């Protein structure tokens, strides 16, 4: 399981990479592995919409289950990764780069700071086994 050091992680398995005040959000390697083959990604928020921490950004459906991607931060949606609509498998193949889901302009960096570090997330995942 990969958990890149430079990212922060949420308890519902989202990762965040902060680029200035833009939070790039995706799902972790652990999450994609649990879901198995992902066949559909639905975006629940449009570009320009305001989201609160905890809002559902997207619903991901695999051959086994459907899961929500919950926003780990509050802010305004700047971009969604439309390519996932036609290539949902990118979430399995490359969850941390090409498989990003959504970019949110954050309004409150405290929320970001409060997220788990890679180490904390790794131990969080290992406790769930």
């Amino acid at each position: 399981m990969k958990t890149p050091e430079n990212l922060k992680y949420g308890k519902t398995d989202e990762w965040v990479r902060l680029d200035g005040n833009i939070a790039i959000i995706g799902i972790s390697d652990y999450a994609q592995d649990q879901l198995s083959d992902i066949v559909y990604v639905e975006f629940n928020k449009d570009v320009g919409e305001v989201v609160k921490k905890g809002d559902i950004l997207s619903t991901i459906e695999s051959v086994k289950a459907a899961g929500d991607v919950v926003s780990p931060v509050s802010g305004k949606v700047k971009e969604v990764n439309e390519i996932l609509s036609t290539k949902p498998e990118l979430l399995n193949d490359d969850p941390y780069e090409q498989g990003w889901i959504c970019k949110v302009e954050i309004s409150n960096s405290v929320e970001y700071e409060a997220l788990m570090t890679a180490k904390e997330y790794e131990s969080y995942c290992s406790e769930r086994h």
Partner: protein
Amino acid sequence: MFIPHTDSERQEMLKCIGKDSLESLFSDIPEKYRFPKLDLPPALSEMEALQELTELASANNSCDELICFLGAGSYNHYIPAAVDMLLRRGDFFTAYTPYQPEISQGTLQAVFEFQSLIANLTGMEVSNASHYDGATACAEACLSAYHHFRGKRNKFIISPSLHPHYCDTIRTYLGALDGIQIMDKSESIQQVNPQFLAEQIDENTALVIVQYPDFLGRVVDFTSFGKTVHEAGSLFAVAVNPIALGLLKPPSEFDADFVVGEGQPLGIPMSFGGPYLGFFATKSELIRKISGRIVGETVDGKGNRGYVLTLTAREQHIRREKATSNICTNQGLMALAATIYMSLLGKSGLRKVAELCYQKAHYASEQIAKISGFKIRKEWIFFNEFVVECPENPKTINDFLLHEGVLGGLDLGDYYPEMKNCILFAVTEKNTKEDIDILTELLEEAVANG
């Protein structure tokens, strides 16, 4: 009565859940309700029961004996004998779509063929495995549109000439959602130009649904209307009579997003209103928003052709609590009837049936228009149903017709107060010229007597 569990199995089950008797299992139910005395007549033998049911059934008037000119959503078409013959094969007749569907390749293949035929007939890219009836298929189109816009558009414009029962079902389905606005002005039923519908469309409109031919039998070209709907960013649904599509251009040419309808005319008897068949076709891009299921063709590990449940996008066995549709069944047997019917008729056969319906209905309308006092709306283009304005109360006329062995048309005054004195007549390929001439003579007589 056949009860599959033996006494010892029951004891084992009771023991497992810690109960010592069947009575203690039901102890939560107050005793007086547990085994109530039922006031039933003495048991009958099979022969006696059959006799009684036959007597009851013979009290009905069926269209085998009557000359039928009633339609309004259910039509008296000829059903080739092969339809029933194949339908009653035990392999199809008793088979519910199993929970491991791929084990029933025959059932899945039949559904696959049905989908292919419906997609062809409507001109659409995708068809699902069917719904209960035309009304539920219409309601599912509304729900699909609702989910497509994720609830952000909540206005639904229903053409006033959509079947009134379909409107009721749409209301029932949409009634469970918050903030839904349903536009259906019944006073506009006589308007033909869909422009008045266009005036109601705004940026909050999720879907516009029309019927083709409409409830009054009229045929309107919705090509430019489809554009108007899409310019507002709304979706467009068309409810069709599948037989009419043998002759009319398919709604795909109106750029319809959903084509739905009642499949009863395709080889299913009228039988008191059910079981019927809803069909539902759409564009590939909307496939994730539809309810029901889609069967696909694939190959197995050895390269053999096989059929699978390809998509059940909104159902619960994948989406669990996130499911937005809980109708998991489909009208498998009725879909099979329609499949056999369409396969037997083929493209040219279906066209022939449609042409016969059209020609005979037009002959009937011309003959009726000749009777003094009866009026036909000449400017209305119709398929096999038409409105006749009568000089007498339609109930009196229909009673007289029935007395003479003719099932008359629908009294429109029952549905639209502004259309009292109007009857909706339907003509199919089963009506002979003699039938139509009898109707005309009887109408003349009915008025002369009145």
